[in-house]
């Protein structure tokens, strides 16, 4: 069993602590994605697992082994870097075989392994080329190949696709997903791309400021976020948040023509809550006139309508192509009560 | 029989002296076939700085240098071998008496001479003839001659003071003629103020020449060799120089009919004539490894035959130090020899930069150069030299 377990891991740079006691369990063979805003500690956490950063406190296990202070090379991990980190003076084959060669693996065996990996990644015809002579996607594939060749128990990816253009990114994304299915190793993947996280992950870890906000399967996070941060972070365009008055199990907001019943169990005595509702769950009610259309953006199949509520809040509504509003038009909105979420306006925690 | 290695350092980098020295060493080699002789010839100017280094490290067995004050620092530092034993040998003591003084410090001798030469005025006889001039003997005649030369559109003297020492020659003569040999030596030894009226008189005399335009222009940018063409082309009529200037002048095409020599004129009738005659020397560094061979080499160098040979007109063209040697029939050497042996009652000086301590020599010759360019600065220059004197001799 080669899952990865982090126990109260802490990372400090000098005085400043950047990872604050993370507990995390990644199962064997799982595809785990770290997401979070820039600077939240995704890379740091990954590099701690790789052994490239010292762990200040806490324990990291890979499988049953405590690797907390082990040499990176001994941990049975392989890492794919954002910038690929290919050795520019070596051919593709040499790049892939270099680690084995330096560790005294016999030549024949190296060749076999390189061959296998390049088969998987369809790199056969490029083996003799230098990285410079490859496209971005091919380079990334070589970097992955280099990881595969070493037969690690855990693959680590740090934003591997962010240097590729949009089209290639889609392609490689699919390829990595397929690779994971094929070799079934544990993979930990850092990204700040919504789509990558949603489409690739078995499990998403949402980080903020060196702390875990929520861990879960992609659609679970989407449908059932624990707090306002996760709700706002997952999904694009982001969820709308409205500061509402709350009383008697109903929320009121100037944008809503009448109080909306909510099922969530809001603690007694709270008179203000944050209402969260995704753009696609708002329906425009042309008979109403609570909101003003600020701007519309038609993208073809779908269009986004930016609304201004009477108290100046902003709302984004997703409309299907057939309906369309004009700038300045006054309209109402309607929301299905079972689609909204309610958050504590102070802590951001969700009331379920 | 001598064996081992004998390393000789020489500064005779000009082609003719170099060949002479190499030939002499070759003859010595033939006498001692088992000796491995290694000769290093270093550029003459560079040699002057490098001797410091090679006397303390990577030391040769024999090195040439200059007599008098120029060897004093090395003697004081114990870097030259005491060779009084050689001077005690009859062969040397009997025949080299005239130069013994120049090689003696603290009652001991620290090397042997191998050549010396006279200084004096070399002039274009054909120009003198053309202008109806004759060799002057008094300051008055000198000035009169010079005026005529200038009137003919020439300058009287060529000189190149870029490397300073040539100006030292002029100062030697002017001062010795104005104030006498003893005064001159006292000045070199720091015993007399540079602001003394007698020194000022010397400079006043000098200024007479400068003011009348006796020296070529731009001399401060020329080396002594670069000043030769002025004389060769006839732009200048005379050159106060050592005898070594004769060879390049002849080479440049001046025949003995065109070229002649006279002793520097008397200025102050009350002082006796004294001359510059620098002596070049050989020494054994204290750190030498093969001192036995070195001594043999020194004996060989001063032997009468070698002295005759290396100083003859086709070689160094200078004066032998051994009384038993014969002076070459060359007219300049004969004149010089006579002058030094019979017409120099005042004494014989080595040369300003050998008689004065190095630092003083440097500062003062700079002053001379400046004076020759800007004679009006005389007082300022002398004040500066006086300051230097108090500092240098103080230490």
């Amino acid at each position, binding site marked *: 069993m080669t899952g990865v377990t982090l126990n109260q891991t802490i990372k400090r740079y000098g005085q400043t602590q950047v990872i604050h006691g993370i507990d995390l369990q990644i199962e064997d063979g799982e595809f785990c994605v770290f997401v979070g805003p820039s600077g939240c500690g995704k890379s740091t956490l990954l590099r701690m697992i790789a052994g490239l950063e*010292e762990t*200040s*406190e806490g324990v990291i296990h890979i499988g049953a082994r*405590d690797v*907390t*202070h*082990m*040499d990176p090379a*001994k941990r049975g991990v392989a890492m794919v870097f954002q910038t690929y980190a290919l050795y520019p003076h070596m051919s593709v084959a040499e790049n892939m075989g270099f680690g084995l060669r330096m560790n005294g693996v016999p030549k024949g065996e190296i060749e076999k392994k390189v061959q296998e990996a390049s088969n998987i990644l369809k790199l056969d015809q490029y083996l003799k080329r230098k990285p410079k002579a490859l496209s971005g996607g091919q380079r990334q594939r070589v970097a992955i190949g280099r990881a595969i060749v070493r037969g690690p128990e855990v693959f680590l990816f740090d934003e591997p696709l962010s240097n590729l253009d949009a089209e290639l990114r889609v392609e490689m994304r699919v390829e990595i997903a397929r690779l994971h299915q094929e070799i079934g190793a544990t993979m930990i993947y850092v990204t700040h791309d919504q789509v990558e996280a949603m489409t690739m992950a078995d499990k998403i870890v949402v980080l903020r400021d060196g702390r875990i906000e929520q861990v879960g399967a992609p659609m679970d996070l989407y449908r059932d976020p624990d707090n306002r941060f996760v709700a706002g972070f997952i999904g694009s365009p982001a969820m709308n948040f409205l500061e509402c008055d709350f009383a008697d199990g109903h929320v009121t907001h100037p944008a809503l023509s009448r109080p909306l019943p909510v099922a969530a169990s809001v603690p007694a005595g709270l008179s203000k809550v944050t209402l969260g509702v995704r753009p696609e769950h708002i329906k425009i009610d042309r008979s109403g006139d609570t909101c003003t259309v600020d701007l519309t953006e038609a993208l073809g199949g779908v269009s986004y309508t930016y609304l201004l509520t009477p108290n100046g809040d902003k709302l984004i509504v997703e409309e299907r192509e057939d309906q369309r509003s004009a700038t300045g038009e006054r309209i109402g909105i309607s929301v299905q009560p079972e689609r909204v979420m309610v958050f504590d306006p102070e802590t951001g925690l969700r009331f379920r | 029989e001598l064996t081992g290695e004998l390393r000789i350092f020489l500064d005779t980098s000009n082609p003719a002296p170099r060949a002479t020295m190499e030939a002499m060493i070759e003859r010595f080699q033939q006498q001692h076939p088992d000796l491995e002789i290694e000769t290093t010839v270093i550029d003459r*100017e560079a040699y*002057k*700085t490098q001797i*410091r280094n090679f*006397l*303390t490290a990577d030391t040769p067995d024999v090195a040439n240098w200059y007599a008098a004050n120029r060897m004093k*620092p*090395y003697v*004081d*530092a*114990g*870097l030259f071998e005491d060779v009084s034993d050689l001077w005690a040998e009859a062969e040397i003591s009997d025949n080299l008496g005239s130069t013994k003084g120049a090689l003696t410090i603290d009652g001991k001798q620290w090397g042997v001479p191998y050549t010396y030469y006279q200084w004096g005025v070399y002039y274009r006889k054909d120009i003198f003839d053309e202008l109806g001039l004759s060799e002057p003997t008094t300051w008055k005649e000198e000035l009169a001659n010079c005026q005529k030369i200038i009137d003919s559109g020439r300058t009287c003297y060529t000189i190149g*003071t*870029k*490397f*300073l020492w040539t100006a030292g020659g002029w100062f030697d003569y002017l001062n010795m003629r104005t104030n006498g040999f003893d005064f001159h030596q006292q000045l070199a030894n720091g015993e007399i103020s540079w602001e003394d009226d007698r020194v000022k008189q010397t400079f006043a005399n000098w200024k007479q020449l400068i003011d009348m335009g006796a020296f070529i*222009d*731009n*001399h*401060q*940018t020329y080396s002594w060799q670069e000043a030769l063409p002025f004389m060769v082309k006839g732009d200048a009529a005379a050159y106060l120089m050592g005898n070594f200037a004769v060879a390049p002048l002849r080479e440049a095409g001046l025949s003995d009919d065109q070229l002649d020599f006279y002793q520097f004129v008397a200025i102050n009738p009350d002082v006796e004539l004294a001359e510059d005659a620098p002596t070049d020397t050989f020494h054994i560094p204290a750190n030498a490894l093969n001192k036995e061979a070195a001594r043999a080499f020194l004996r060989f160098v001063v032997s009468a035959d070698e002295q005759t040979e290396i100083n003859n007109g086709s070689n160094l063209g200078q004066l032998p130090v051994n009384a038993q040697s014969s002076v070459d029939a060359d007219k300049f050497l004969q004149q010089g020899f006579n002058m030094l042996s019979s017409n120099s009652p005042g004494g014989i000086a080595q040369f300003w*930069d050998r008689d004065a301590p*190095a*630092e003083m*020599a*440097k500062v003062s010759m*700079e*002053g001379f*150069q*400046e004076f020759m*360019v800007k004679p009006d600065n005389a007082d300022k220059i002398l004040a*500066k030299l006086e*300051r230097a004197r108090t*500092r240098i001799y103080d*230490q």
Partner: protein
Amino acid sequence: MTVSAELDSESWFHRNQQRIAPWLFLAPGLLFFLFYVIIPVFQSFNLSLYEWDGLGAAEYVGFRNYEDLYWEFSDRDAFYISLKNNLIWLLLYLAAIPAGLFIALFLNQTVKGIRLYKSLFFFPFVISQVVVGLVFTWFYDPTFGLLNEFLGLFGMGPLNVLGDERFVTYGIIFAGLWPQTAYCMILYLTGLNAVDPEQIEAGRLDGAKGFRMLWHIILPQLRPATFIAFVVTIIGALRSFDLISIMTQGGPFGSSRVLAYYMFEVALSEYGFRMGYGAAIAVILFLIMLCFIAYFLWSMYREERRH
């Protein structure tokens, strides 16, 4: 740091590889540098308190060498002249920077054969200062020098540049400017290559042209090149020795000396060998340079902080 309970069988060396490795890599170079550069600097400081002729034993004299320098300074003697000349060098040598910029601008085109022109213009920097010195000595020669021929064309001259204490330092500096300008030129040429074309275009849209474009938009972008040019020019000016040694030996009557040459003269030349005194001059020179070194290190430190 908590020490892991699990101790590998690996050697101590292996475990501490990352901590030891830098020192092993540093050792040879660092030792060399310490012995030949760093320690000698301090030795020179020490030596400047002694009087020593390089032959016998050194005699401790405290600050007397510096006192002597002070007197030389107040008497306007050699040290004063050297110091003054050094300042002239520092100031005038900086002319290499605008001159280099000018030539770089002139050559920053893409016509055919321009590469060859650029390299030929760079020539003077590659050849030895000794040769440069010789070349310019002849250039200035009062009898046949090209300079006087040239001045003659305009009915001026003749000038004995190297023989006149009023001109000699400027003459040598001018010779030194030749290679230094070539150096600055290459720095600016590469700098110009890196100028952001979009900023130039933005400038054009903003109506900046010619000199105003140069001043407001190009020069600020050439700051790194200017900085480097400044540093190397200052260093070059303070180190100037070769040219003086070749062209004038400090003359006429010592009027073209600079500190670097003067200390050599005092310490190692024919009439010199006052080692302590030379060291004291070197210390002064070092202190002047220290201002620039400190400035340079400081700006480098800021740069490092930012990364």
